[in-house]
Every structure is written in structure tokens, then in C-alpha cells.
């Protein structure tokens, strides 16, 4: 594991747990903190007598959440402003109230599993104060010793406070000291066009290095295959350096996985004949970046399939893969930008469904099954980027990674939608089978077009009225996606589309879909009536591999606020997913937000409330979310889908 310690100050969660230490950055800060705290606990404390109080300093160390604002303050390490506390879920059962303060007892896994409903968090006033005071060293940066408990705030914070409505602080777009905020607005701009004489080289390089995030794909022999920003001329030196580093460590049989330099994290992934590199300044964890690289690799496989990729390089290791991949830059760019923007779907590796009445969903499922063509393998109905229904064979399920590739192709890259017709796309779904190709029929229909198809299914011609020519397909359209193993199945799937639309029109489901699409995501306040403190939440149903969330409006409307929210979610997600963390509930407090992550075998829930909200309040709100999901489960999730 090549992971040099550094004075890394990216906004990362520091985990001081022995197994995960190797992956954590900011090692120096943790080393220091150790001198001041009791020795670390063994990874799995099994003894029941680990007193809370003795335990506490280490616990506070174990997860101190750093929020993105911190990036601009290089010397801060896990200090009081962003401390959090860890507790375990306790069962609230009558006979057990006596044990409520001995949370380590509940680490017994069998007992965990028996938790069938949410009881309460271990909580006491002691915990509260402990949770907001970090035991990490703060001596070197005294001015930042700001806490929720009224310590002297820093001048910057005071200045900020005077201008701001604290409640909306997450919404701050042009935040006072956050270079990320300004830069992310430029992140997706193209570089300038290279001048013929190379006179703007410096400008180009500046623009290039100002990008917060880079992705590179290179062949094992070091040829550039893909780079998110910059042309070959610009990136070739860097690709060469990356290749040298990678091959040096590969030669030593100790592959380089990640390293950090300042606030920049580099992650390498070797996949067969390809090396993939991610460079991020936005404080993502190694695991998250690695997932992103995996996804880019899946996109390459989806274009070529594994056998053909291997064949290309076994014939000629020095092949320039850009030629076979020609035209797929838009797809790789779409994925990369999605990662940079931050999407809940990517973070949770799951998909979002359109909220729809259970009976409606059943009617749509039945229609799909009724009109199913024998050529069909998978069928999807997608409305406004959200799943409406899935039809699949009993023995095959759809891999979330594959679905992500499909959604990226349909909704991020404009190529499919822009044509305005129907599409027939060969693709490899590596999660399903990385050796062969499937064929995907795609049809985008606005509700009006769907009605026209339904009224004249025989000719099935898209109406060409004057207004319609101006209608460009948008994400508000209904997308019908049928996947077949048969490359000649286009016409049969096309007529299946016609029958489906006719059937949906007859059962008035087109109107129901249009209404559900218009309704969009409900805001938090209407999901949790009665003045909820929550501003946003993500709920992932693990069994269904789906998630649901309220509208980003009104608190996270802009891209920067959205990115900050996603960064916060990413931190929460990371902490609760560190291997062996055994963490079930995580409270995170910062000057910008109060957050809660809660993981059970059934679901993962991440909640965000405004700053200064009491933990109990957030906890109660989280309970309400779970209650709401329980009630709405069959509306917000596809349970089972249409199976044949």
C-alpha cells in the first residue's frame, strides 16, 4: 500500500481505527492526537466493560467530520468545529432501559441483527458536550477553536455571520473563503482552443491545472486513451509521469494505489491492459474515486467488450485505443462530470424511481408483460430520469452499474436524445456479461407524441406539427428502453413499444405518468409536515438497490449548494462504509449543517439539517423519514418489478 502520509488537508473524514488507518490521510494529525489520548482500541472491542467515559476521547477521534469549507484552511485538523460523536443504536425495550448507557454491549452482532425498529440513540448531556469538543490537538491553530458551544468564533466566521442568514448557510454560493465554489462553476468549461503557434500554451496550462478533477485512461504501454480535460499535446507529459510512477511500482510488485499531494488526491486503478488515474481536489475518498474509475472502465468495456479489448492489446500492445473508442468521449465525459457534480445515484450505487401509486405501477407492469416481445431481455420505462418500471426475466437482474451506464448514455450524453428518432444501440453490459453485446432499443416520447403514437399505432409516426419541430427531447420525456440479445430485434421491439403505448393510453396511465412527472420530487417540508428541521435526506433501500430523496429545492437549488450537499453526503457515506467500522449511527455537526447517517441491514439513511439543530431533533426527524418510507415504500420503490 503506497500511501505516504502528508500534511493532507482535504476535507476528509479521519478514521482512527486501526484497520482503516492505512487508508486514511492526515496521518500526521492523528499521530499527534494519539499522544494526548489513550492508546487506540482494538478493532473489535468485545469486552463489555469499555466505559463510555474512558472510551470517549478515542471515540471522538474515530470520526471527526471535516466539511468542505475546511479546505481553504490548510492547518486545521479535526477540531472542535466539526466534531461528531458515535453512538450505537439501542433497542428500546422495556427490560433494557438499565443498559442504555452501555452502548458497547450492543456491538454484539447478533443483537444488532435483531434490531427490528429504531429505538433511540444513546444520548446524554455528557455525550452532547463531548461530541462538540474534539480531543484532537488544537494548539497549533488556536484561532479556529470554534465550537457550537459558544467558544470565541474566528474573525472570518463572525464576519460571515453578520452577513448571513445562518439557516441558509449551505446555500451560500459565492462563499467567502471557498475556492472550490468559484472553481466548480468553471469546471465543465472547455479549455481554450490551442492557437496555431502555441502562443497560448501558458493560458491553457493554467486553465487545465485549475480544474478540480481529472480523469485519465492510459494503456499499459503508456499511451493516452482518454483525458477529461486537455488535448494530447497538453496532457502527454503528465500521462508520461503517471505511467512512470505506475510502472515503477508495478515492476516492484507493489502497485501504486493512491497518494496525496497537498490537497490533491491521486488514485490509480489497473485493469487488464488499461491504467486509470483520478486526480481530485474536492476531497473525495480513495474508495469513492476508485469506484468512479471502475465506472469509467465499465464504460470502456461497454463500448468494446472484454474479449475485444484484450484482443486489441494482445495483438499489438502499442495500439492506440482512441480509434476503437472514437465517439465515446461524450459518454466518458458524461460519467466524469456526473462524478464531479456529485450524484446521489453514483454515491449510493442505486437508482431513483418515479413516485407513483402502487396500483398504477402494477397496471404498467402488467401492460409490459402483456405486450412483451419474445426478443426482450430487459425493459425499462424511465420518466424524467427516474425509473417507472422494469421488466426482466426471472433469473436475471439488472446490475446497478450497467443501469448507470445506460442512464448516463441516455440522459447525460446528448447523442441519443438529440436525434429525435428511435435508436438501436449495440452495447455490452459488463455487469451482466462482459463478453458479448446486447442491443438496446430507445425511444424518447413527449406525452403529446405518446398520445399520437397511441392514436395511430399502425403507422406510428411522430407528429410533425409546427410546434413539435421546436420540441427538443428533454429529460422530461418518457424514455422507453428495451434490451434484446438479438441484433435483428429492432422492428419487433418497435412494435412492442407501439403496443405498450397504446395499452398505457387505454388504461390512462400515460396521463398518470405525466402527472407524476409534473409533480416531481416532493420537498422535505411536505414529506415531513410540521416544520421539519431536515433540509434534505437520502434513503437507500438496500434490498431494492434503489434510493429516494426529496427535492433539492429550496435549499440546494444551485450547483454549488448541490455539490456541497453531495460532499457532505459523501463524507457520511464514507465514514459508515469504512471496512470494519461497525458503525450504525453517525452524528456529524459542523458550522454549516447537522447531519445524521444511519445504516441498518435494510436501509441507509442520510439526513441533513441546518446548523445548530439538536441531535435529538435530527434523530426524531430521521425516525419520521423512516416511518414515511415504510408507508410509501411501494410508491417510491419498485418492489420486484415485472418478472417473466
Amino acid at each position, binding site marked *: 500500500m503506497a500511501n505516504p502520509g502528508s500534511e493532507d488537508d482535504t476535507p476528509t473524514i479521519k478514521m482512527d481505527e486501526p484497520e482503516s488507518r492505512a487508508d486514511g490521510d492526515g496521518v500526521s494529525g492523528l499521530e499527534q492526537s494519539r499522544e494526548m489520548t489513550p492508546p487506540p482500541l482494538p478493532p473489535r472491542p468485545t469486552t463489555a466493560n469499555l466505559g463510555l467515559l474512558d472510551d470517549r476521547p478515542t471515540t471522538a477521534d474515530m470520526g471527526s467530520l471535516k466539511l468542505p469549507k475546511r479546505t481553504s484552511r490548510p492547518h486545521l485538523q479535526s477540531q472542535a468545529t466539526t466534531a461528531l460523536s458515535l453512538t450505537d443504536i439501542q433497542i428500546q425495550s422495556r427490560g433494557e432501559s438499565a443498559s442504555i448507557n452501555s452502548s458497547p454491549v450492543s456491538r454484539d452482532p447478533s443483537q444488532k441483527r435483531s434490531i427490528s425498529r429504531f429505538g433511540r440513540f444513546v444520548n446524554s448531556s455528557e455525550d452532547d458536550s463531548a461530541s462538540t469538543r474534539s480531543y484532537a490537538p488544537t494548539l497549533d491553530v488556536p484561532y479556529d477553536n470554534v465550537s457550537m458551544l459558544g467558544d470565541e468564533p474566528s474573525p472570518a466566521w463572525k464576519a460571515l455571520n453578520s452577513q448571513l442568514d445562518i439557516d441558509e448557510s449551505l446555500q451560500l454560493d459565492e462563499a467567502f473563503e471557498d475556492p472550490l465554489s468559484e472553481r466548480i462553476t468553471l469546471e465543465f468549461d472547455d479549455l481554450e482552443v490551442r492557437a496555431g503557434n502555441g502562443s497560448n500554451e501558458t493560458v491553457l496550462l493554467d486553465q487545465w491545472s485549475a480544474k478540480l478533477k481529472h480523469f485519465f485512461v492510459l494503456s499499459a504501454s503508456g499511451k493516452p486513451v482518454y483525458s477529461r480535460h486537455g488535448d494530447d499535446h497538453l496532457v502527454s507529459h503528465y500521462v508520461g509521469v503517471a505511467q512512470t510512477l505506475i510502472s515503477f511500482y508495478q515492476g516492484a510488485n507493489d502497485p501504486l494505489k493512491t497518494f496525496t499531494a497537498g490537497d490533491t488526491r491521486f488514485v490509480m486503478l489497473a485493469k487488464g491492459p488499461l491504467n486509470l488515474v483520478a486526480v481530485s481536489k474536492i476531497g473525495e475518498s480513495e474508495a469513492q474515486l476508485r469506484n468512479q474509475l471502475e465506472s469509467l472502465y465499465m464504460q470502456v468495456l461497454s463500448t*468494446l467488450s472484454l474479449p475485444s479489448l484484450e484482443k486489441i492489446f494482445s495483438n499489438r500492445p502499442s495500439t492506440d485505443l482512441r480509434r476503437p473508442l472514437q465517439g465515446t468521449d461524450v459518454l466518458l465525459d458524461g460519467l466524469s462530470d456526473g462524478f464531479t457534480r456529485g450524484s446521489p445515484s453514483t454515491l449510493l450505487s442505486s437508482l431513483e424511481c418515479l413516485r407513483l401509486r402502487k396500483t398504477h405501477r402494477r397496471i404498467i407492469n402488467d401492460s409490459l408483460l402483456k405486450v412483451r416481445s419474445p426478443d426482450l431481455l430487459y425493459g425499462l420505462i424511465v420518466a424524467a430520469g427516474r425509473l417507472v418500471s422494469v421488466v426482466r426475466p426471472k433469473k436475471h437482474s439488472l446490475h446497478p452499474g450497467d443501469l448507470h451506464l445506460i442512464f448516463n448514455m441516455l440522459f447525460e450524453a446528448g447523442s441519443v436524445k438529440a436525434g429525435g428518432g428511435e435508436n438501436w444501440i449495440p452495447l455490452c453490459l459488463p455487469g451482466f456479461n462482459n463478453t458479448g453485446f446486447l442491443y438496446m432499443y430507445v425511444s424518447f416520447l413527449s406525452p403529446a407524441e405518446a398520445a399520437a403514437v397511441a392514436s395511430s399505432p399502425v403507422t406510428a409516426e411522430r407528429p410533425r406539427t409546427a410546434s413539435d419541430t421546436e420540441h427538443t427531447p428533454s429529460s422530461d420525456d418518457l424514455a422507453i428502453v428495451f434490451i434484446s440479445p438479438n441484433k435483428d430485434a429492432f422492428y419487433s421491439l418497435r412494435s412492442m413499444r407501439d403496443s405498450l403505448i397504446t395499452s398505457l393510453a387505454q388504461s390512462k396511465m400515460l396521463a398518470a405518468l405525466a402527472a407524476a412527472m409534473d409533480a416531481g420530487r416532493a420537498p422535505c417540508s411536505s414529506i415531513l409536515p410540521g416544520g421539519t428541521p431536515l433540509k434534505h435526506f437520502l434513503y437507500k433501500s438496500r434490498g431494492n438497490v434503489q434510493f429516494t430523496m426529496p427535492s433539492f429545492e429550496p435549499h440546494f437549488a444551485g450547483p454549488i449548494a448541490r455539490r456541497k450537499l453531495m460532499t457532505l453526503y459523501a463524507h457520511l457515506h464514507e465514514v459508515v462504509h469504512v471496512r470494519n467500522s461497525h458503525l450504525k449511527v453517525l452524528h456529524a455537526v459542523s458550522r454549516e449543517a447537522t447531519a445524521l447517517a444511519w445504516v441498518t441491514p435494510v436501509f441507509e439513511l442520510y439526513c441533513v439539517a441546518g446548523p445548530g439543530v439538536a441531535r435529538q431533533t435530527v434523530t426524531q426527524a430521521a425516525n419520521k423519514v423512516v416511518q414515511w418510507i415504510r408507508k410509501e415504500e411501494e410508491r417510491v420503490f419498485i418492489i420486484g418489478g415485472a418478472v417473466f
Partner: protein
Amino acid sequence: MSDSPAPSAPKPSSSVKLVLLGEAAVGKSSLVLRFVNDAFEPNKEPTIGAAFLTQKCNLPNRTIKFEIWDTAGQERFASLAPMYYRNAQSALVVYDITKASSLVKAKHWIAELQRQASPGIVIALVGNKLDLVEDEEEGEAQEGEGEGEGEEDGKVRRVSTKEGKDYADEENLLFFETSAKSGHNVNEVFTAIANAIPETSLKGPRGGAGGATQAALGSGAQDNSRVNLNANADAGPKEGCAC
């Protein structure tokens, strides 16, 4: 304009399958977009696989309904082309007049069509992107697209009109130079193809597509790239999506 709906007397209507072939980025999709939606999108993203569009073309004595296969030009999709040109009554082979290699590729496609497509297929050879070289042409186009977005510098004609025309005459093809951006000659190409389709090869409204369907479904060639569903069943547990 040929795409205006015919309100009154029902004319005989027939479907014609048309396939677009040619090197990547010569403007196949843009030509179709201009013909079908009368629109132009600069920097259009490359087509993936193939797009299927329909558009009516009204002739004085009949209506032709084009069923257009707009194929992706990238090399890796070339092996799929037969399923698009099989049973096609017409083909539009496109090259970029500012890129000589694209005419070479177009000639390959024409040779392949003559060898493997239906014998009576009507082929049109189209040199696109006329707008890029309009400055040096007289009488070719009067749209005057002087205000291009900087893509004109360095763009000069690499294939002369005569070269394209001579080749087309030799191979007995229709020939046009077009601009999808300005719309120049686009409808003319499709109208000329519609006129060139022999009356005898026209069937009823669904004739073209129906025949194509049967042919398409009947062919199971090149199965080796298909996924064998059964073979995958024992591939072990996957991170399943229960949806």
C-alpha cells in the same frame, strides 16, 4: 417543401427504406436532422449505434414515406451495417468535401452496397459541408454563411465537385453537394431519391418495413457476438437489483 402534410386527395403512399452510410463526422445525422426537423445543431454529438427516423416526402403523384436508418460512422459499428442496408431500397453515402479520406471511405461503402445490398438499390453520393467552402465557390450557393464559428479557418475543399461527380457518373449514382448547416440541396437529395425509386419496387404503406422485418428476423448470422443467456445463468451471484 416536401414535408408539408397533404391535406386533401389521398395519394398512393409507400414506404421506402433508406440507409445513410459514410465516415464518422461527415454530417450524416445533420443531413437527416435537416430533412426531418429542418434544424441544424452545431457540434452535434456522435451517433451511437443507429437512429431510426421517418419522414414523408410528397411527390406530385404519390407520397413516399422514408424510413431512415442513420448509422454511426465509427469503424466499430461497420460490422452492423448489413442489417441496416439489407432490404433497403435506397442509400445515401455521405462524404465531407473538406476531407479527402472521407471520399475513399464513401467509395468503399458504395462498393459494398453494390456487392451486397438489394440489386435495385438507389444510391446517392453526397458531398456535405458545402457551407465551409462557400467563399471560394461562385454560383454554388447563395445562403452566404459567412459567420461560421471559427471552424472555417483551415477548412478548404479537398474534393472537387468534378471528382465527386465523375465518380458518381461512373458508378451510376445520384450526386449532390449539400450543406446541412444552410439546408442547401438537402431536400433535393431526398426528393431525387424518391423520384428514382422505380414504381415497381414500391409496395403498400407497410410494405417496406414489413418486408424488412421478416428479413431482419430471419437472419441469424454472426451469432457469435450474441450473449448466451443460459450460459450466464450459473455465473454466480451478482450484486443484484431486485427491480
